[in-house]
């Protein structure tokens, strides 16, 4: 009896030790912990960059309109055929405003807490950047003519990423609710989006009321031009 008692406690001790060691070996991500005034200073800096970004983006849109208008004047003077080529490229690259029928998709966080109050990016009540990427990819696979998220025009090289609980589209902050507009064949796009096997995560979380996900057909959507930068300095044309 005494021996079995000692044996039981020895085994329990070993098990506890194993779990303790295992625990210390777990590489759980550590949350950063700053003094509050330092965090405040960082947030102020962040806000100043965001304010600057919105100013710069609106300036880009205005300058692109100015370029467009100057090009029209050149065309009327010279009757150059290059102008139509240029317009074709602009349409391909998302530099022309698009209007037409399509879908408006709204995906929103659960409403128990605000996004700022949640510290854990993997919170199932939060819309993830990967959710937005999957929806945009499905729309693109359904041959959408133009897509935007919260008025940010999406082009092929638009990154959709996240930093902590913040979602960035074209490296610009966007906040929930996320409204995705897509111009194109509404029925085809709707058929893809309603297929639960193509968006399993989103439908599973919606079923548990973790997130909101609504789709509406729209007749007159307007999607503005891409307002980011287009860099091609590493690209060289192959001469034929």
């Amino acid at each position, binding site marked *: 009896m005494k021996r079995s008692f000692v044996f039981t406690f020895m085994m329990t001790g070993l098990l506890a030790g194993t779990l*303790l060691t295992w625990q210390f070996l777990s590489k759980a991500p550590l949350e950063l912990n700053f003094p509050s005034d330092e965090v405040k200073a960082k947030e102020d800096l962040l806000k100043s960059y965001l304010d600057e970004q919105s100013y710069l983006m609106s300036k880009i849109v205005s300058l692109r309109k100015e370029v467009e208008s100057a090009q029209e004047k050149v065309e009327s003077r010279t009757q150059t055929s290059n102008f139509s080529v240029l317009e074709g490229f602009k349409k391909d*690259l998302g530099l022309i405003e698009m209007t037409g029928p399509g879908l408006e998709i709204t995906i929103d966080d659960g409403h128990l807490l605000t996004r700022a109050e949640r510290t854990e990016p993997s919170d199932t009540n939060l819309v993830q950047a990967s959710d937005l990427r999957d929806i945009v990819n499905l729309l693109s696979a359904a041959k959408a003519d133009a897509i935007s998220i919260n008025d940010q025009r999406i082009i092929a*090289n638009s990154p959709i*990423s996240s930093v*902590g609980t913040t979602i960035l589209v074209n490296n610009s902050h966007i906040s929930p609710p996320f409204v995705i507009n897509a111009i194109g064949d509404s029925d085809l796009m709707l058929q893809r989006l309603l297929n639960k096997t193509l968006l399993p995560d989103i439908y599973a979380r919606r079923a548990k009321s973790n997130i909101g996900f609504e789709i509406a057909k729209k007749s007159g959507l307007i999607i503005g031009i891409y307002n980011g*930068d287009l860099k091609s300095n590493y690209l*060289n044309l192959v001469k034929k």
Partner: protein
Amino acid sequence: MILERKILILGTATLLSFFVVIQINSFDNVNDTLQRDSKSNIFQEIKILKEKNEDLKSEISDLESAVGQLNDQGKALNAIQEEITEYTKLSGKASVFGPGVTMTIDGKFSTPWMIDMVNELFNSGAQAVSVNGIRIVNQTAGFDTLPKGQILLNGSVLSSPYTVNAIGEATTLFSLIQSPGGIFDRLKKAFPATKTNITTKDIIQMD
């Protein structure tokens, strides 16, 4: 004696269950690293914004220069030609070449991770990306999954090994893709048996 033994057993069991709960919580946190999106902090957020604003300022400077040239009769046609050349490179309507990285993914892979890989490359500054020879541009139909799990891109079925090319600043692309917590790191956790490789190249051509 019996009472002491009971207290001892109760205390041990409590301690043990305490460890079990802590351990389960740790697993939850570890599993988070397998998420499709990387975790980052306010420093990275500020860094990204700062770089983005620099890029936007550079774009503004280019556009102001274009407006100036277009308003100058002698330079206007040249400005239009320059813009057409730039858009030709970006639109995917002509073959392009440049430095960058080539990645190979050999083994099991899935559509969501392919979407993430392409996204990560553009996020790291790639100016052109192709998957198994198909360049990703605005007119490319997105990725799709066939019933047997194969990946479809622009109407073509992709098969392993997948080759992903990206043109851009090669060193930056290489380091960001391979960084701890980066896409390769997350991908290796999601598909442990899949072999991945990345190399920098002086010249990559995309047709």
